[in-house]
């Protein structure tokens, strides 16, 4: 069984985000970019399936600017077998919407016929949490989002999902789409020899046109603004003072 893992290149989670003064978006020029953290978890899970003899090949795919190649190389260095880069934007500020991403991924699924697709639950830039579910809709596959644990069996997978009330375990028919939550695993770091080896692994380059997908956005960004600032607070010297202040202001 092949496992397909979509990985997105996003602003590094440690970087302080700056909104551009003209309201056109967030400044991504000369900013450190990394693999979306949930996608690292997805790559790790796929590699573990291969190591356990449950997957035959791990294919990673990224859709975006050509620099997404670096993200794919990182995934290859972690242990993925080959990569597909779909160059769909010129400018790092162009974000391809989940619907278009899902359409491209659905076309890749048709070609590659993976038994399982593991996405991240959410991209930490647009915070949409949509692509996996959309891909499931377009392929007609089952979906198991927010995975906390994944067991692959013959023709099915059992997935424990992080939900508002705790954990829900469901069984899905394969092929299926799984999205990762934070506690699924702890991703490995790529070793130096593996980083060198990854440079020689196959990386196929494609465009949305190759798949007949129109990536024109459905949502027009009118403006991007800074969130409201909180007014400066005060430091208190003791628990007594804290409780007094809270009572004074009616918070308690």
């Amino acid at each position: 069984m092949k496992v397909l893992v979509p990985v997105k290149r996003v602003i590094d989670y440690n970087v302080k985000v700056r909104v551009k003064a003209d309201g056109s978006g967030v400044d991504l020029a000369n900013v450190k970019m990394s693999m979306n953290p949930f996608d690292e978890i997805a790559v790790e899970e796929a590699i573990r399936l291969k190591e356990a003899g449950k997957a035959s090949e791990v294919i990673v795919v990224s859709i975006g600017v050509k620099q997404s190649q670096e993200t794919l190389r990182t995934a290859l260095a972690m242990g993925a077998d080959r990569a597909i880069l779909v160059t769909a934007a010129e400018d790092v500020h162009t974000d391809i919407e989940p619907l278009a991403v899902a359409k491209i991924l659905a076309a890749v699924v048709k070609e590659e016929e993976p038994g399982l697709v593991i996405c991240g639950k959410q991209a930490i830039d647009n915070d949409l949490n949509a692509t996996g579910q959309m891909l499931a809709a377009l392929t007609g596959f089952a979906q198991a989002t927010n995975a906390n644990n994944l067991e692959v069996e013959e023709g099915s997978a059992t997935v424990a999902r992080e939900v508002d009330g705790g954990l829900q375990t469901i069984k899905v028919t394969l092929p299926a789409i799984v999205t990762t939550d934070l506690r699924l695993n702890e991703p490995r770091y790529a070793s130096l020899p593996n980083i060198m080896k990854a440079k020689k692994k196959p990386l196929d380059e494609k465009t949305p046109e190759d798949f007949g997908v129109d990536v024109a956005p459905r949502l027009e960004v009118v403006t991007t603004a800074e969130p409201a600032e909180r007014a400066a607070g005060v430091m208190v010297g003791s628990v007594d003072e804290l409780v007094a202040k809270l009572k004074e202001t009616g918070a308690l």
Partner: protein
Amino acid sequence: MAVLLLAEITDGSLAMDATAKTVAAASKLGDVTVLAVGATAKDAAGEAATIEGVSKVLVAEDAIYGHRLAEPTAALIVSLAGDYSHIVAPATTDAKNILPRVAALLDVMVLTDVTGVVDGDTFERPIYAGNAIQTVKSKDATKVITFRTSTFDAAATGGSAALEDIAAAENPGLSEWVSDKVAESDRPELTSAKIVVSGGRGVGSEEDFKIIEALADKLGAAVGASRAAVDSGFAPNDWQVGQTGKVVAPELYIACGISGAIQHLAGMKDSKVIVAINKDEEAPIFQVADYGLVADIFEAVPEMTGKV
């Protein structure tokens, strides 16, 4: 314009707060029809019918809707979609599972975690862990939206909308429920609680989380946690507050032994009053706190429990 609103129903009971807040947000868009789905949904539907602003409640009761699986519920919503300009739900894990699937089946984009309605096509939503607020205008025929409930006031009750039974849609039969692991608790629900007391890595162990819980219980509060506390096994996953956990905006949020990473702030910085207790005076949490106390939580938290 007409809105179809997926009520938040778990095991037959309605999440009134989340549903009523979504009705308030949706009322700005048009006439609101609530969809109540479940193995048992009548009682929940009856309750939803009392929310002011609801004009009708559709009730789809069938065993296939028993465990909030995405595929059958999405299929049902799609079968009804033709009559509506907007399909909306509260941004819960259930609705976030279902609505993007609905959107893709309708060939439209989804708008998740919406915090503001500008007009019927234009919405505000936070991006980059709430470090920017984007205003987007949809060009799609049907708008599919989840609303972040913490930013809307609940619609009042007192209405009496009519109930209408509808037939189940075909079940794609792709997934089945195995089990639920739900912790029973008498505490208020995290996302609707008036007060939240949260613990972070600084709490140090599951055992010591009891000091956080004791303060919460004294205040009638819900308990939250940082990702580090959940990852370390001090607290269950459904207590995580943050960018990728729950978003809360209580009257009072008390952060204990939490450093204040942006991913945590994303889930609580709209709280009315924020208190931070941390032994490191440089901790970034103090920058968003209304009241900061530099102290050891093992002394300060039990002391506070005794004094409130």
